[in-house]
C-alpha cells in the first residue's frame, strides 16, 4: 500500500488539481529518469472498455462497485477510486471518456497496478482491457512516423511465444494454464527449470524513427516474430521521452507532461472506438427483419465471418496442444469455453463462449486458419483480443480479415479518420 499516494489523492477534489498533481509528478519523474534514479513509480494509465450496447451500459460506480471499489465523484466524468479491500486505500482516478470507454490513472507501482486492473477485469463481465494487436500496432507505428521528427527516438517491444509448440507438455495430466504459469514463476531456484525448446521472442528495439522506418519492414520479412509488436512508444511532441502503449491498453507516461499523456490516450482511444464500430458493423451476424406488407416478415442475414489465416500451417502436435489447452481447461489463455466437435485430424468446430464477456462465438479452428462467426451483441473486443492472442501465441505473421476486408486496412481507415491533437 502506498500511504503517501493514497493521502495525496484523497486531497484532490477538482479536475484542475488532478491535472496539476499528475503534471508536477510527471515532471519530477522525468528529472529523476534523467539521473537514472526514480524515487517513485511512473504515472500509468489503463484503457478499459465497457459494453457497447447503450441499453446495458452501467454507470462507472456500478461497474466498479461490483468489485467492491468505491468511486468518489470529482466532476461529471472524473472520479477518485477507493479500494477498501485489503487496506489498499485510494488507488488513483478513473475518467469516463464515453459511456463505453474509461481510463484509470495511477502512480502505483506497475506490479500492484497491473494486478489490480487485471483483477477488476477478471471480476467483471462488463469490463475488458482494450486490445491492441500487432496488426494494430503496425498501423499505429505508421502514424508515429508521420507525427514524429525523424531524429526522435522510438521504442518497440516485440513479444511472441509459441506456447503451443511444445511436445512433452501435451501429455501432461490436466492442469489449468494459469496454474502452469504460476508454478513456473514460483520456482525458487531457476536452475531447476526444465529446458523448453520452442520459439520465444521478446526483445526491445530503441532507435531513431528514421532508422526504424528504414529497417523494420525488411526485418519483419526476415524474422516473423517482429510482426508481434506488443508495445509502442509515441514520442512526446513537446519534450523528451514519450508514451508507451502496451497491447492490453496499459500506457506508461515516460514524458514530463501528463496533459500530453492524456491526449495521446484520447487519440488512440478514438482510433480504437472507430475500429470497434467498423468491426462490429461488418462482423455482427443477425437476422435483419424487414417487414413488408405482403406477406409478413423477411429475414435477411447480415454479417461477415472473421478469418485469421496462419502464415504457415501449424504442425499436428501444435494444433492438438492448442485445442487441448484452450478447451480442455476452464482457465486458458484465450478465455474461451466450448466442446470441440472434431471434424478431422486438424479441424474442429466450437460453438463456444468468450468468457471475458460471456458472449457466444462460433469457431472453426484448423491448422491453417481460424474462422469466427460473431453473433450480434458479442463485443468487437472479442475479435481484437483473439487477433492479439493469435499473434502473440500462435503465429506472429497471421493475417486477419473481416469478410473480404483486411483487418489492417480497417485499422488504417479508422486511424485516418481521427484528428491528432497534442497536449493542452
Amino acid at each position, binding site marked *: 500500500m502506498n500511504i503517501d499516494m493514497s493521502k495525496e489523492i484523497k486531497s484532490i477534489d477538482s479536475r484542475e488539481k488532478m491535472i496539476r498533481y499528475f503534471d508536477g509528478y510527471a515532471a519530477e519523474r522525468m528529472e529523476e529518469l534523467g539521473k537514472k534514479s526514480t524515487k517513485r513509480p511512473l504515472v500509468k494509465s489503463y484503457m478499459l472498455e465497457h459494453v457497447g450496447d447503450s441499453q446495458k451500459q452501467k454507470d462507472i460506480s456500478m461497474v466498479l462497485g461490483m468489485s467492491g471499489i468505491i468511486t468518489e465523484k470529482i466532476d461529471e466524468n472524473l472520479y477518485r477510486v477507493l479500494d477498501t479491500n485489503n487496506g489498499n486505500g485510494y488507488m488513483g482516478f478513473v475518467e469516463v471518456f464515453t459511456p463505453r470507454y474509461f481510463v484509470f490513472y495511477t502512480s502505483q507501482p506497475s506490479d500492484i497496478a497491473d494486478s489490480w486492473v487485471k483483477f477488476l477485469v477478471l471480476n467483471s463481465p462488463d469490463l475488458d482491457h482494450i486490445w491492441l494487436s500487432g496488426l494494430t500496432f503496425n498501423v499505429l507505428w505508421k502514424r508515429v512516423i508521420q507525427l514524429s521528427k525523424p531524429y526522435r527516438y522510438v521504442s518497440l517491444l516485440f513479444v511472441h511465444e509459441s506456447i503451443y509448440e511444445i511436445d512433452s507438455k501435451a501429455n501432461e495430466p490436466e492442469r489449468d494454464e494459469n496454474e502452469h504459469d504460476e508454478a513456473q514463476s514460483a520456482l525458487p531456484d531457476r536452475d531447476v527449470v526444465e529446458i523448453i525448446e520452442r520459439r520465444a521472442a521478446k526483445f526491445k528495439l530503441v532507435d531513431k524513427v528514421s532508422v526504424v522506418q528504414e529497417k523494420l519492414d525488411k526485418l519483419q520479412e526476415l524474422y516473423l516474430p517482429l510482426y508481434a509488436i506488443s508495445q509502442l512508444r509515441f514520442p512526446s511532441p513537446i519534450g523528451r521521452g514519450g508514451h508507451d502503449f502496451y497491447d492490453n491498453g496499459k500506457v506508461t507516461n515516460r514524458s514530463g507532461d501528463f496533459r500530453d499523456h492524456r491526449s495521446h490516450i484520447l487519440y488512440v482511444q478514438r482510433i480504437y472506438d472507430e475500429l470497434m464500430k467498423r468491426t462490429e458493423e461488418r462482423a455482427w451476424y443477425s437476422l435483419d427483419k424487414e417487414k413488408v406488407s405482403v406477406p409478413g416478415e423477411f429475414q435477411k*442475414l447480415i454479417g461477415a465471418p472473421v*478469418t485469421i489465416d496462419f502464415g504457415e500451417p501449424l504442425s499436428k502436435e501444435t494444433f492438438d496442444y492448442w485445442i487441448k489447452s484452450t478447451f480442455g481447461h476452464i482457465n486458458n489463455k484465450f478465455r474461451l469455453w466450448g466442446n470441440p466437435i472434431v471434424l478431422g485430424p486438424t479441424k474442429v468446430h466450437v460453438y463456444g463462449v468468450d468468457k471475458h464477456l460471456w458472449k457466444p462465438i462460433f469457431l472453426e479452428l484448423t491448422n491453417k486458419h481460424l474462422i469466427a*462467426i460473431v453473433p450480434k451483441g458479442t463485443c468487437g473486443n472479442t475479435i481484437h483480443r483473439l487477433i492479439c492472442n493469435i499473434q502473440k501465441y500462435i503465429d506472429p505473421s497471421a493475417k486477419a480479415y473481416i469478410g473480404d476486408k483486411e483487418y489492417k486496412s480497417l485499422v488504417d481507415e479508422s486511424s485516418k479518420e481521427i484528428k491528432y491533437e497534442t497536449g493542452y
Partner: protein
Amino acid sequence: MKLDINSLCKDPLFQLNLAIWLTQPQHADNVCVDPIFYKSGLSIYSIGPLLTLPLDIKLAIKGKINFKDSIRPDLILEKKELNRYCLLECKGSSFGSGSSTAEQARTLLLIAGPIISEVLGMGSRRQNAGVLCYMTGPNQNSMLGTTLLELKEEIESIGLEPGPFGCFEISADESVITLEYSLEVKELLSLKIDSPLQIMKLEEDTDPRPLYFIPYDPNINQTAEEKEFSRRVLFERILEFFITDIGGADVPIKTYIKTEKFLNDATFGIYSLWDDNEAKKCLRKLVRTFLKKIEGTLKSPAKECMHYEIKVGYMVDIKDDNAKSEFLKQLQKIKPETMDVSESIQPSLFESDDHD
C-alpha cells in the same frame, strides 16, 4: 467410419449452409468456401420466407394443377442491379411430377414468374424478374431438369407463365467439392465464373462441413449420421446460450428458462419460422429432456440452483457470486456428446406444454 462426402452433398441442411456460405464475403486466398454468389453480387434477401400465390392466380389454377397455397423456399437470393430474385430450394435428389414435392415446385415456378414482385411486395407484375434454382446432390441435374420442364409445360398449358429455372449440382471427388450449373443459370444470375466450379478443397479424413448457420431443421430427410451431427450442433449451441445467459447476468439471478428463446438463439431465429407446430413441440420437448439431463449432472451446491416447476418449466435461482461461479463451472463441464438425447420424441395426446 469414413464419411461419404457425396452422401453429405445430398443433405439439404448441408446444402443450405453451403448456399449461405456461398453468399458470404471472404478474402481471396485460402477461403473456406469459394463465395461464387457473393462474387457475382448475389446476397441473401430472405431465409425461409412464407410466400403465397396472388388470389387471381390461385383461382386460375384451382382444379387444373396441384399446388400449395403457401410455401417457404429455403432462401431467396437478390441481385440488386438486375432487380432479380432467385428462389433457392435445397433437395437431396430429384422427384417425379406426380409427387407432393412437385406441388411445391409448381408453386415455386409460378412465383418465379412475372408475379415475383407482387409476391415479395416489391412492386407490380413484371417489375422484377424471378428465377427458381434447385440445389441438389450428385447426378441429379438431368432428372430434375426433366421434371421441372414437365411442370413448366403443365403451367403453360393452362395459359400461365412460369419463371425460368435451373439447378446447382453439388458433388465431390477425392480432393474437392464442385458446383455445377448450366450456361442458362450462369446467364440468368450473371455468375462471374464458369461451371464447374471448385468451391471447397477437401482434406484427407476431414469432414468438409463448414460452420453451420442453420444447425437443424426438423422437416428434412437426413441420414442417421447427419441427424446426429445436426442435433449435436443444436445442443452445443443451446448449452452455449445457457452459459452466456447466466454468465452475463447480475446476481441475484431468478429466471425461467425459455426453451423457445434458446431454440431461436441457437438457430439465428429460424426456429420461429418453422411452420410445423408438431415438430416444434417435439423440439421443445427434446430441449427440456436436455435440460433435465443437465439438471441431473449438476452436483450440490449448483444442483439447488436449478429446479423444475410444473406448468412453468425450469427455473434458475442463483443468490450470490459464489453460487453463480459454481453453477457456471459445472455447466462448463457438460458434454452434450455424452448425453443421450438421441431418442425420437413423439408428441402425446393431451400433452401439456410449458409456458415458455
